[in-house]
Every structure is written in structure tokens, then in C-alpha cells.
């Protein structure tokens, strides 16, 4: 991988966020993390077009991952978004409605996530 892709990873579960961050960093991605929807939106505003891909949890307090996805896709429809959730089919259906590119159900294998990232970034 010549270019270092920049990923924004959002999850309110600290353990999951740390493990995703450590896995993706080892795979040579530049990872920025946020533990809630509000911080994620602030990071996106501060770094317009700076992220190559966003991975977001769906069920979070205040601003949900569905909201984050909807806002990102409204501003930049081409930004790839992977939505992850452990809350069953309701949030998954909502994520698809707001055009999340891939919806993954927790628990998933980290290799599966990497495959999804590579597919969306065409690498």
C-alpha cells in the first residue's frame, strides 16, 4: 500500500474502539478515533475531505451512527462508510436507508473488516 489511507473510526465502546484502532494501525492505516457522534462530526468538520473512509458504530447516545452516516453522505455522497452494530436488524435497516456502503453485524472477524475496507478503497 503506497498511500497511507486515513480512516475515522467511531464507537462508544472503548474496548472495541481500542481494538479496532490497534488492528487498523498495524495494517498501516492512519487511524483517527472518536468515542461519540458529536466528536466525530467535529473531526469531520475540521478535516473536510481529509478522511478516506469512515467506520461507525450505529447505536450511540446523543448522535447515533445512523445520524453520522446521514450527515456524512449528505455532505459527501462518495465518502465510503462502513456501519457496525450489535443491535440486530432495526439499526441495520436504518443504516442502509441512509446509504451506508456496508453494514456489518457484531461480532465480526477483523479480517472481514479489512476486506470490506479494501473493497471500498479499491486496493
Amino acid at each position: 500500500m503506497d498511500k497511507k489511507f486515513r480512516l475515522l473510526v467511531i464507537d462508544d465502546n472503548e474496548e472495541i474502539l481500542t481494538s479496532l484502532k490497534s488492528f487498523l494501525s498495524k495494517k498501516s492505516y492512519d487511524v483517527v478515533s472518536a468515542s461519540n457522534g458529536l466528536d466525530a462530526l467535529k473531526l469531520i468538520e475540521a478535516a473536510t475531505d481529509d478522511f478516506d473512509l469512515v467506520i461507525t458504530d450505529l447505536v450511540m447516545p446523543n448522535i447515533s451512527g445512523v445520524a453520522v452516516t446521514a450527515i456524512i453522505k449528505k455532505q459527501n455522497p462518495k465518502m465510503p462508510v462502513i456501519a457496525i452494530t450489535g443491535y440486530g436488524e432495526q439499526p441495520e435497516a436504518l443504516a442502509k436507508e441512509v446509504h451506508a456502503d456496508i453494514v456489518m453485524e457484531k461480532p465480526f472477524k477483523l479480517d472481514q473488516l479489512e476486506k470490506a475496507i479494501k473493497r471500498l478503497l479499491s486496493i
Partner: protein
Amino acid sequence: MSRPIIGVSENIVKIREVINHIADTGLNTVICGESGVGKEVIAQSLYQKSSRNGKPFIKVNCAALPDGLLESELFGYEKGAFTGADRKTRGKFELANKGVLMLDEIGDMSLSLQAKLLHVLQGGAFAPLGSEKEFKTDTWVIAATNHELEKEISEGKFREDLYYRLNIIKIYIQPLRERPEDIPHLIDYYLKEYSLLFNSDKIIQPSDTVIDELTRYPWPGNVRELQNILKRMLVLGDAEKILDEMNSRNSMTGTSSDGSTSDTQAMGYKGILDFNGKDSPDEPTFSLKTIRKTALDRVEKEVISHVLGKTGWNRSKATKILKISYKTLLYKISDLGITPPAKAD
């Protein structure tokens, strides 16, 4: 003109930030919090900061109307749809088109109406009662509730699919007792507003002691109760008397400064007497007379300690609330072994 969101607490600061980021998205929103915390102020603020400002803002209280009436109120009806429908009437979803529909007390909506609301939120279309034709609507739905919707779902009272669809944005307003740092700011704002409203010549500035007492009060009725008290203070001008009444009412209901009720009240006599221990009828000292004295002493100790706690151990104020003489109070404190709480430092 709606009210600004007053406060410096972390909760209020975060709410202002969330509003600034999502007001223009039109994403379904739920505002939660106890009665009187100011859910409508938040909904109005969302509306005013959005591009829908100037379009209709319509509020419907879902708890105020019976099911059938609420349905016709929301979706409207055709002439002849039911007995008494003598003319076509537009529903709130149609009237709020391009604007905001605030559904207050959503937790009180029936399951059958929840299903109909879900249908509108999924497809953006609704059919008035008695009509086969569906109408498209572009309405931003902001729901509000003082119920715990998660609990309602587990009890089968609220649809899980509707919950997720509404809960795209969730704004939780803490009760006032959990953010006392906001109280002096609210007092300042509302006293200025009410002075103008009542044409008072000058804005009353309560003493530091009064502000301190108001800040320590647990406000079971939240901001709405604070507003009412401030109005009374402005009209009657006797802050001390009003504070005494508040504290007395508060001690009667057994609400402690954290808003919870005292254990003794919750447990009834079982919390006062230990029938399996020293108050057991098997004890040689047991008699109705001794038990009456024991129970009375323990209740008196609880009540006097509570009132002293509320008055910050101001004995004069406590005597007024308890309606006993100063001498009697001193005797009771000593006889019942009531001691002031240890200071943290």
C-alpha cells in the same frame, strides 16, 4: 421568540453543541427528561436553528387526547369518516408540512397508533381517516418523553422499531437537582424576564442566602417549578416565607436533596421497627406502650434530622417548619441524639 437554553453545566453545554450540529439535518429526534426540565425549549431551539424556521411548528400532546381523537388530530379526516365528521379536516402532519411536528409525551401513545406513526416515518406518507389516498409529507418529527422508552420496550408498551427510527438523535436533559450550577443563571434570566412582564420598576436581586437556598433545593418540578417560585417571589416580595414553605413541603413529601424518597418512608413501619430483633414481641420489655414510644422516637428523630438537614442546621428555621418552640427543639436534639453531619473537610 423562544427562550435561550440557559446553563453552564456539562449537560447543557453539550446539548447546545448537539443542537448546533444537527439542527439543519431534519433527522428524527427524541428529547428525554423529567417533567418541567424544558423539553419544548430544546425543540424550539432545534427548529429556530434549522432552515425550517418560519415554517409551521406544531405541538401535539399525545397524553392529552384519547386514542381515536389523537389519530384524527394527527392525520386528519374526510367528511363522513366517522359520526360527527361533518367536514373535511386537515391533520397536524399536513399542517406541519415543511416544518416541525413536536409529539410531546410520545411514551403515552397507544401501540396501534405507534404502528401508524411508524408507517409515516418510514414512507413519509399518510392517509387521512376515511381517505384511500395517501399524502406525502415533509415533516421533521421531534418527539419528547419523560418515560424511559427502553424500559417501555421491555414491558411491551413501546415498539422497538419505532424507537430506533425516532432515536436517530437523542437529547437527554438532566433534572435540575443534578445540575445545580445552572440554577443561579436561570434565576437571573427569569427574574429579568418576569420583571419586564410584571412591569416592575426595578429588577429584584435576591440575597446570596436566598440564591444559595434555591440552589440547594432539589426542585422536583424542575425549571417549571423554579419559574413559578420566582414569579411568586416577584409578586409577593417575601422570599424568606416562600423558601420556608418550599422546605416544609419538601420535608413533608420526604424528598431528599438527591430527589429520592427516604428509606423510612419507602419501607413504612418495617423500616422503623425490627420485629425480628430488639423490637420482637418475644423480648421481655415488649408492650404496646414501649413499642409506641420507640416508634415515635425513631420517626421524630428521622423527621427532625431531615428538617435540620434541609435548613443547613439553622435551628430557628427548623422550629418554624416543625411548628415547635426553640426550647423543645433543643431538648429533642439532645434527647434523641441527633448530631450534625460530619463535614467533608
